[in-house]
């Protein structure tokens, strides 16, 4: 009987083998089925092997392979935290593989997707398993690289190529930040093993620096503002099931890195570091969802919404840090569990939504929601699954998104126990911004679902759309069911997550399974409780009651007629509200401040038959405020220095001469 970690590594090895297989069979027509079938099977096996570790909460198993850094070897370790993230990865992987079985047949360049897909999965699994800095970073970058290759699958579109470029540079930036963090953690002696780092003492300033670097490194991968700019470019560029993996799973792996270092390796946190995480998290949440609202590309919208959720998760982790720093173990466990729960939930519904977007894309060839509409009639099943995803991500009961956000809010309500005034005052403000983000998320997904699936078709392709294949639907419905189950049975999920909190924080939330009626009670019943199951039962019961009474006692008659347009019935679908017009009120309220949104009306002079046009001008504050100047500076310097390529030999000699004289002068002064 091999140990749990060895089993996981065998799964990874099989995944890498699948990559080789994919290259070997790239000419074959059956390649798609073979590869996705294999990844589906492997993911499910890996999932089934890691869940026992999570539930049983057994001891961590370790393994050292004689690869990687020669004097260290590659350390792997499977503990509760790793098991949880492995579960997230492999669940997402399995769903994406299932979806890929159907969606992959639409792929125009399968040889650019199939080899990298299993490699990407393998990379994510390995990051979670790694137990020394070198292996961790190696796998981390390998994961980035594989996903980059997937982003570049449709490289002929200039936008995708740019997206891939920005992505890779940001990934590299993040890795370098992590590298520095690990350099600091390992010390000059090069103690790269996580066990060594865990045992070492870190001074407060060092710990602060490591945290900052982790925020840069893991944050850039996860999409923390202002390092998120690559995310809305890269995630949509990949094939949809890969987008789902990137958004739903890879960002979580980044968060895993953050948790592993900050909660596990760094030792007891400092409350001031929590402030930074809280501020960044809540700012990311609001900025992310506002950007999502302004977006009309469905996949980009989803990517921005990922940023929002990452913000929520980070805010929650910040709370956990704040409580942990003050020795409030129970509250810390609550916040931490809330973060983990949200991680799980987000991986469910974001994958589901990306699958839906992929279904729309493969059925209509469109990602721009302004050209869609009325798909609920033509893709009823897809639209139902997508609706479930929308409700879940909007944090509405009784679905899972609400359960985790509710826990976050409960954690925020523990803030009076914090001794620091700064935190006392700040945490409610964080709560306000999270509430704002949640409300805006609902608005955003009303828009996303409403414009895409409701109303009348805005283009011929939307008119001609059809339902997608069974595998895709099966993947979507599986996730929808998971969203629902996690929503009505949150207590069970919390109990599964508790060992992770116990292992990292030394505290856990109370056991929920024993509570009556399966409700969740974070602290005690008189303070707060929530029961998704009952809420669901109540709503169903009352709604059924209403339906019963009405159909029993009231009129059944239905007459179909044209929609009423106040006397101006306009048959063209263009008269409907568009996505841009839908968000106009919100754009006016928030956009003028955040995006410097301006509306210009171009009114043709009287007699001119051209239509009047309303133009909306928006600026991305992060890109224009941070990235454009940096890239401008780089190009400016590159231009300046480039003149050195065109000097004459005499000038080159002068350079040599000047260097010589300088060094001699230095020597004369120094020695």
């Amino acid at each position, binding site marked *: 009987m091999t140990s749990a970690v060895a089993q996981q590594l065998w799964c990874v090895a099989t995944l890498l083998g699948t990559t080789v297989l994919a290259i070997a069979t790239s000419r074959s027509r059956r390649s798609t089925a073979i590869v996705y079938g294999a990844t589906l099977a492997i993911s499910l096996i890996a999932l089934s092997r890691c869940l026992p570790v999570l539930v049983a909460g057994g001891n961590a198993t370790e393994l050292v392979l004689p690869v990687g850094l020669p004097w260290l070897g590659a350390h792997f370790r499977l503990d509760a935290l790793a098991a949880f993230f492995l579960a997230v990865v492999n669940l997402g992987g399995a769903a994406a593989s299932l979806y890929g079985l159907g969606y992959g047949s639409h792929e125009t360049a399968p040889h650019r997707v199939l080899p990298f897909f299993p490699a990407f999965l393998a990379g994510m699994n390995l990051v979670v398993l790694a137990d020394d800095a070198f292996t961790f970073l190696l796998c981390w970058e390998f994961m980035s690289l594989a996903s980059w290759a997937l982003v570049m699958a449709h490289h002929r579109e200039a936008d995708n190529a740019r997206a891939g470029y920005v992505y890779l540079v940001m990934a590299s930036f993040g890795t370098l930040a992590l590298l520095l963090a690990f350099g600091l953690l390992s010390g000059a002696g090069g103690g790269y093993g996580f066990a060594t780092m865990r045992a070492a003492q870190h001074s407060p300033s060092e710990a602060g620096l490591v945290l900052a670097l982790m925020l840069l490194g893991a944050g850039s991968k996860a999409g923390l503002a202002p390092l998120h700019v690559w995310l809305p470019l890269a995630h949509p560029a990949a094939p949809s099931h890969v987008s789902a993996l990137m958004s739903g799973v890879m960002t979580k792996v980044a968060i895993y890195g953050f948790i592993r270092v900050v909660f596990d390796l760094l030792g007891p946190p400092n409350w001031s570091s929590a402030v930074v995480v809280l501020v960044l998290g809540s700012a990311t949440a609001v900025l992310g969802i506002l950007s999502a609202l302004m977006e009309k590309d469905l996949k980009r919208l989803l990517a921005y919404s990922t940023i929002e959720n990452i913000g929520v998760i980070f805010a929650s982790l910040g709370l956990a840090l704040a409580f942990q720093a003050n020795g409030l173990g129970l509250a810390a466990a609550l916040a931490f569990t809330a973060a983990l729960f949200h991680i799980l939930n987000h991986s469910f519904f974001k994958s589901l939504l990306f699958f839906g977007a992929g279904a729309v894309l493969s059925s209509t060839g469109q990602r721009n929601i302004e050209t869609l509409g009325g798909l609920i009639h033509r893709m009823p099943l897809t639209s139902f699954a997508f609706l479930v995803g929308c409700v879940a991500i909007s944090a509405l009961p009784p679905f899972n998104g609400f359960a985790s956000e509710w826990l976050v809010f409960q954690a925020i309500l523990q803030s009076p126990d914090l001794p620091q005034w700064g935190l006392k005052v700040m945490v409610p403000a964080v709560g306000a911004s999270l509430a704002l983000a949640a409300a805006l998320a609902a608005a955003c997904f009303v828009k996303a679902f409403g414009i895409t699936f409701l109303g009348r078709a805005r283009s011929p392709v939307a008119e001609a759309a059809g339902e997608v294949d069974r595998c895709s639907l099966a993947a979507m419905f599986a996730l929808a069911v998971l969203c629902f189950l996690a929503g009505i049975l949150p207590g069970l999920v919390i109990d599964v997550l508790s060992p992770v909190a116990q292992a990292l924080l030394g505290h856990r939330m109370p056991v929920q399974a024993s509570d009556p009626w399966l409700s969740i009670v974070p602290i005690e019943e008189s303070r707060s409780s929530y029961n998704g199951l009952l809420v669901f039962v109540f709503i169903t019961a009352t709604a059924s009651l209403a339906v019963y009474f009405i159909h029993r006692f009231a009129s059944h008659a239905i007459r179909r007629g044209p929609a009423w347009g106040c006397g101006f019935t306009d048959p063209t679908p263009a008269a409907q509200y568009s996505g841009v017009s839908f968000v106009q009120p919100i754009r006016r309220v928030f956009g003028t401040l955040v995006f410097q949104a301006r509306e210009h009306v171009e009114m043709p002079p009287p007699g001119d038959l051209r239509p009047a046009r309303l133009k909306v001008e928006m600026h991305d504050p992060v890109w224009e405020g941070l990235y454009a100047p940096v890239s401008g500076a780089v190009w400016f310097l590159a231009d300046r220095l480039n003149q050195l*390529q*065109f000097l*004459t*030999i*005499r*000038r080159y*000699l*002068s350079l*040599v*001469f000047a260097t*010589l*004289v300088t060094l*001699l*002068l230095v*020597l*004369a002064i120094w*020695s």
Partner: protein
Amino acid sequence: MPNLAFDIAHLLAGSLVLVSFMMLYQDRLYALLNVFALHAVVLACSVAWQAYIQNAPHLYVTAVIALVFKAVIIPVALHRIIKQLGIHRDIETAVGIGLTMLAGMGLVALSMVLMLRVTGTADPLAREDLAFALSVVLLGLLVMVTRRNAVSQVVGFMSLENGLVLAATGAKGMPLVVEISVAFSILIAFIVIGVFLFRIRERFDTVDVGALDEFRGERR
């Protein structure tokens, strides 16, 4: 005798530096060549003197090479090139003479500062010699970077190399000196031939940067 030997070596090395200075303020090519020939002659004397006092007959070979090759053949060849290319009238300094001289002073001062730190364990003759050699090397480089013309740059390079020979011969018992001086002569011959063959490259310092752009495959 040791004192006299030292004084003469010192004198010769010192005059080499002086001649290097003379090169700095020549702004006509012919004059520069003549001064260089003088430079080579002084070097030959210095090397011969070292051969004598060190009792190292092989150094005479180096002295002869310096005399024949650098004081005669190369200047003559360069004369011909200048005539053929018709560039003898060019004023070819890139930096003003005054400034160059000042820089030269600075360089000599620098080399003195550096060399005088060398402790007395090294033999004083070598030490002084080396100080002058360093000055000559630096001045040679200075000539190279302040002249626009290929010919005068070759001259600068040769004077630099003279500094090396001075240092090498001053280092008592250094092996391979002759070989090195032969190798350098070949190198210089290559350069001269290069200048001669590729007339397009007659000027190191092309004003037209656009033309260079084109050559370097970096067209916009």
